[in-house]
């Protein structure tokens, strides 16, 4: 027993000594790191854990996407306003009929393993992503390419896979030569060149197909940064500048370290301490003080995020569009964004976000508060005000407060009581919506994949997008709307397309299957160590343009 007592004392002394010693060491390190960066020129950035391995075709969420966009460059890139810029791999993308597109590539592009980026790199990658046994999240992005259906495994009524797909390559993709390939679509789609900047369309090197699983951890792309070592879940990945990058927007810094943080608050504290350089997210309770604390290192910019409240148009109670219009006019969005979101969201006044070319200020007539007219419409429609309105949202995601505010406004302005139905989490909430299970207005949101008004209309409200294949949870179906979107897709010029899309939006906002609620605003802070930080319309930081201050 004596022995163990002594050992205990030794441990205690050791711990104490270690505390003192490393305390000094710790502050030394901080001092050195801060002023340093002499030769380094690297910076660090917060991400949350990506949902999937770093494979472009399986990355459909913001965290993985941020990393993938540092590692890859697609056919085109988007400018600060979301406009198409031919600074990527494509020389041009042309078509006579908006159906068959010819993609010409620039010479000299290479993957990080030294192999050239060819037409085949794109075609193989797209076929891989579309082929359903590969279970890639972005598969549906290729559904408008000819031959896509043959790459989908047959299933029975219960959703069991019953066999293999009949083909492994889409007939709509043809390699002409090393730097040219053609894409044949099932329907004319003038916006096609706009879509191919999305990460689902990035090329893959030959080495990827030998072992896709390993490639997800050791990604090889063609972008301004290459991976230094593998991705470590829960920790992150370190990238360094790719010296042979062929694009114009080469990396300014020598490297970027993506650090995974489970808790945004911790990441924010690290930026305050100067140990972390960028977070493109600010904890909600720190937003009020962040502007003062960080000054011009606090950035706020509009994002593509669009929050809306949908109506179950399959429910007789909400089938009359006057009811839906009345609800919309009874909600004071500005009051909610000010009181609940501290101004970190903007009240929505259209169904297309302001970051997209084609947004019209005040496009939504019924988004203006007009209690009197709302009540008139509700009376005309013969809405039963004695029954409470059930308001649906998914739990644990911070929607309680604003949905309750919506309910309070409906009660106050329309004299109809409400009931909150916010107890389902996302994995129950979404299937319920797909099965027409909502018994009242429900919350959903959307973030664009590519900057086109089409991306805010067709995937959300078209007949083709009805669940389970699409996101049309309101089960809205109007041939006039479908037709106008289709006209926009066929249009010969962008201006003409926007014209049609806006007409489609007008039809939508007259029928009001959804109430536009808010547009997102993106907040970011960065340390004094870096400059040139800019959050784009996708809510991503273009890491190639970040410079490290010496």
């Amino acid at each position, binding site marked *: 027993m004596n022995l163990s007592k002594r050992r205990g004392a030794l441990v205690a002394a050791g*711990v104490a000594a270690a505390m003192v010693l490393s305390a000094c060491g*710790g502050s030394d390190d901080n001092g050195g790191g801060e002023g340093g960066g002499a030769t380094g020129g690297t910076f660090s950035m917060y991400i949350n854990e990506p949902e999937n*391995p770093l494979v472009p075709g399986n990355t459909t969420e913001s965290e993985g996407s941020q990393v993938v966009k540092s590692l890859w460059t697609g056919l085109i890139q988007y400018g600060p306003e979301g406009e198409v810029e031919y600074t990527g791999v494509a020389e041009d993308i042309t078509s006579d009929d908006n159906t068959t597109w010819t993609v010409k590539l620039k010479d000299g592009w290479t993957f990080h393993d030294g192999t050239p980026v060819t037409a085949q790199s794109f075609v193989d990658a797209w076929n891989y992503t579309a082929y359903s046994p590969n279970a890639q999240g972005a598969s549906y992005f290729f559904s408008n390419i000819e031959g896509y259906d043959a790459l989908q495994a047959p299933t029975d009524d219960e959703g069991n896979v019953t066999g293999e797909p009949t083909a492994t390559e889409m007939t709509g993709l043809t390699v002409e030569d090393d730097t040219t390939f053609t894409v044949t679509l099932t329907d004319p789609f003038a916006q096609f060149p706009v879509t191919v900047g999305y990460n689902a369309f990035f090329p893959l090197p030959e080495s990827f197909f030998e072992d896709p699983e390993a490639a997800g951890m050791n990604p090889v792309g063609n972008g301004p940064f290459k991976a230094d070592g593998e991705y470590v879940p829960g920790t992150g990945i370190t990238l360094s500048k790719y010296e042979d990058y062929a694009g114009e927007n080469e990396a300014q810094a020598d490297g970027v370290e993506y650090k995974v943080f489970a808790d945004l608050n911790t990441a924010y504290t690290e930026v305050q301490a100067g140990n972390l350089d960028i977070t493109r997210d600010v904890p909600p309770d720190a937003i009020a003080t962040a502007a003062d604390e960080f000054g011009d290192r606090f950035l706020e910019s509009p994002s593509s995020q669009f929050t809306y409240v949908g109506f179950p148009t399959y429910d007789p109670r909400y089938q009359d569009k006057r009811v839906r219009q009345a609800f919309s006019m009874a909600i004071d969005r500005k009051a909610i964004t000010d009181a609940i979101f501290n101004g970190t969201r903007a009240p929505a006044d259209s169904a297309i976000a302001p970051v997209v070319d084609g947004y019209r200020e005040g496009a939504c007539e019924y988004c203006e508060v007009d209690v009197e007219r709302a009540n008139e419409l509700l009376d005309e429609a013969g809405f039963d005000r004695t029954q409470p309105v059930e308001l649906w949202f998914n739990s644990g995601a911070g929607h309680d407060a604003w949905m309750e505010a919506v309910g309070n406004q409906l009660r106050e302005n329309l004299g109809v009581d409400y009931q909150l139905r916010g107890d389902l989490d*996302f994995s129950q909430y979404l299937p319920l919506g797909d099965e027409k299970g909502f018994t009242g207005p429900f919350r959903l949101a959307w973030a664009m994949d590519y900057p086109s008004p089409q991306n805010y209309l067709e*995937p959300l409200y078209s007949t083709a997008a009805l669940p389970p294949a699409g996101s049309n949870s309101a089960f809205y179906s109007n041939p006039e709307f479908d037709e106008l979107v289709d006209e926009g897709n066929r249009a010969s010029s962008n201006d003409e397309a926007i014209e049609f899309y806006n007409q489609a939006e007008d039809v939508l906002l007259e029928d009001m299957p959804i109430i536009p609620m808010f547009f997102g605003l993106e907040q970011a802070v960065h340390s004094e160590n870096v400059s040139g930080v800019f959050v784009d319309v996708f809510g991503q930081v273009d890491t190639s343009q970040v410079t490290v201050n010496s």
Partner: protein
Amino acid sequence: MGRYVARRLLLTIPVLLGASFLIFAMVYALPGDPIRALGGDRPLAPAVVAQLKQEFNLNDPLGIQYLKYLGDMAQGDLGTDFRGRPVLDTISQRLPITIKLTVVAIAIEAVIGIAAGVLAGIRRNSFFDNVVLVSTTLVVSIPILVLAFIAQFVFGLRLGLFPISGVQEGWYSFLLPGFVLASGSLAYVARLTRTSVAENMRADYVRTARAKGLPNRTVVIRHTLRNSLIPVVTFVGADIGTLLGGAIVTESVFNLPGIGRAIFDAVRAQEGAVVVGIVTLMVFFFIFFNLVVDVLYAVLDPRIRYE
């Protein structure tokens, strides 16, 4: 003793089987469609959904799913998460971090807790005793989340004594989170030791020892402490098993990629294979350290014999 240990270890097999089935059934019973949630605002292509459901046997009934899981496990395959990453990799990568955190926390709670408890116990109602009582009451009553953020803010950000988060600085990175994690148990150990020591100080054999003229130090250490440690060892031993299961809050706040976070994420995503793999491991740790505690009883108290 050897036979006793062997028998206890053999018994863990049915316990682990039963536990893994229960956990499997619980994940299975969770409502909702995990694959639908993967897609989010935009549903996955129908054939992709079918593919994923088939890969993870989600269309099978519970019994079949469990048997398939056991079959794979017999071949050393613990399955993968929805990202296709083997559960074994997740465990081998994250367990060392949780073990380090546990070692630091247990060391802090045992050393400081027992020392404070003994000093308070032999001088009951002294100033030091009151300090221990008040400070432990205070620590126990503060939720660990609050404690973690306060510690991080004061010692990490303001004073700069410890890293704010992460594991870059080796063992030193684990000191502050270890302290936060240990705080609740530390208070408990201190109080347990104090009560036990105080009680034993009045026992007949202690009076006898004093009457024999033994020095105070010998009386306290050889006679009192040894007998007082049995309840403390039980508690600390069980605590090791619990802490190895991961500390979700501490790991999240200090950004330590350990087991706790992995299991939290897996439960949220309804990844059955991950939850079962890790929780079964936790059950094993718990059983194992309880066995260690039982064996230690015999060492501490010669009257206890296992045959």
